């Protein structure tokens, strides 16, 4: 194996990732969870508490492109997308998604490997109308974008 076949990822970095993943996968699930899961942040019951547990209060950055629907058909399944314009915000290694009005605002944290586009799509539960936040970490700093999504009460069936 030589470095050129791995593109921009150095062999050492790659082996670290592979070893980490291998070790994590080999451990009992609970052990994997405690190795790198930001438990305090997930347990936080208020937005600012969760953000402090993630590191700091993030500053807004136009490089964080956050897409959520203006209005969701139901709160159990709300599609979201987080992209980062790496020309204005490089070295993003982590993306976190928070839902302000949820009992525990932190919904997910994505660790992005070097060489991976910052592009995440998922679906989250939104308890009620309020702000959603996409927080990215770049070189130890936190940046964010936020959007309000309205959640409707059901009418009937359909």
């Amino acid at each position, binding site marked *: 194996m030589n470095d050129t076949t791995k593109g921009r990822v150095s062999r050492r970095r790659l082996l670290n990732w592979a070893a980490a993943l291998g070790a994590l996968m080999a451990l009992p699930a609970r052990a994997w969870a405690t190795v790198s899961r930001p438990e305090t942040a997930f347990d936080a019951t208020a937005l600012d508490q969760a953000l402090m547990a993630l590191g700091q209060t993030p500053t807004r950055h136009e490089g964080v492109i956050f897409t959520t629907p203006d209005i969701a058909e139901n709160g159990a399944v709300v599609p979201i997308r987080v992209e980062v314009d790496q020309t204005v915000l490089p070295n993003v290694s982590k993306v976190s998604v928070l839902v302000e009005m949820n009992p525990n605002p932190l919904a997910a944290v994505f660790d992005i490997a070097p060489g991976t586009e910052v592009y995440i*799509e998922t679906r989250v539960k939104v308890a009620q109308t309020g702000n959603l936040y996409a927080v990215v970490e770049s070189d130890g700093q936190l940046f964010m974008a936020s959007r309000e999504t309205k959640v409707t009460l059901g009418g009937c069936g*359909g």
Partner: protein
Amino acid sequence: MRRQSDDAMTLYRFVMMIPRWWLLLMVVPALADEGIFDQYRDLMGDDNPAIFVIEEGEEFWVQSQGPSAATLEACDLGLGTGVTRGAYAQFPRYFADTDRVMDIETRLLYCMETLQGRDREVIAAKPYSLRGDFGTELEALVTWLAAESEGMTIAPEQAHPKERAMYAMGEEIFFYRAGPHDFSCATCHEQSNKRIRLQQLPNLTEHTEVAEAYGSWPAYRMSQGLVRTMGWRLQDCFRQQRWPGLIFGSEVSIALQTYMAVNAAGGVMTAPGLKR
């Protein structure tokens, strides 16, 4: 005594007034917000968790169950023993072996009983998921069978006199006002461009709308995290109308499904759908 009847009179007058003004509030003409959830649906994309339930349904079909340790593969869904492709689209239909019109769910129960030796009462006691459940066998089977008819023309049989009689019964029930709110199905589903809160109400008397509605059930209901069938949908409508509970597998259920299916005939099966 006198006081009680005065109160009763006042209450009676109040109750009699409810349906009209409530209807005005509830069934609001749809605003020019057609497509209010387009952005939401675009972002959702095509990935419908119903695909898992389709697989689970197929697994139930070939699974040996019951005292007879048999699968459902010999079940006749109207197109011949074991033919599943296109069968759902032709329900409800008359079956000579039972001498009655059946919907897909009652037919499945019949096959479970006769082929597998299972107790229909046990299955009929809990055909649909309750809160906390993750899907029932019947819901999965119906989902798979609907997928086996995906893209096909809705074509319920109406050749037999009992099939036509079932349609007539369904039509009568559809327009029948009852319950504390004097609701009929028609109250909400006889006009186009109506909604309750932000949910469009399909006009089930108009071909294009009923075809789209009927053809999209069973559907994965996002708010519940599982697939629901047309039989369940009707049961839930009855609950919302404050009507007596719709008995699973009853003629009323089959009649209403027949009414909708026939009105939808010629349309296309798109199920399993994705709904709120």
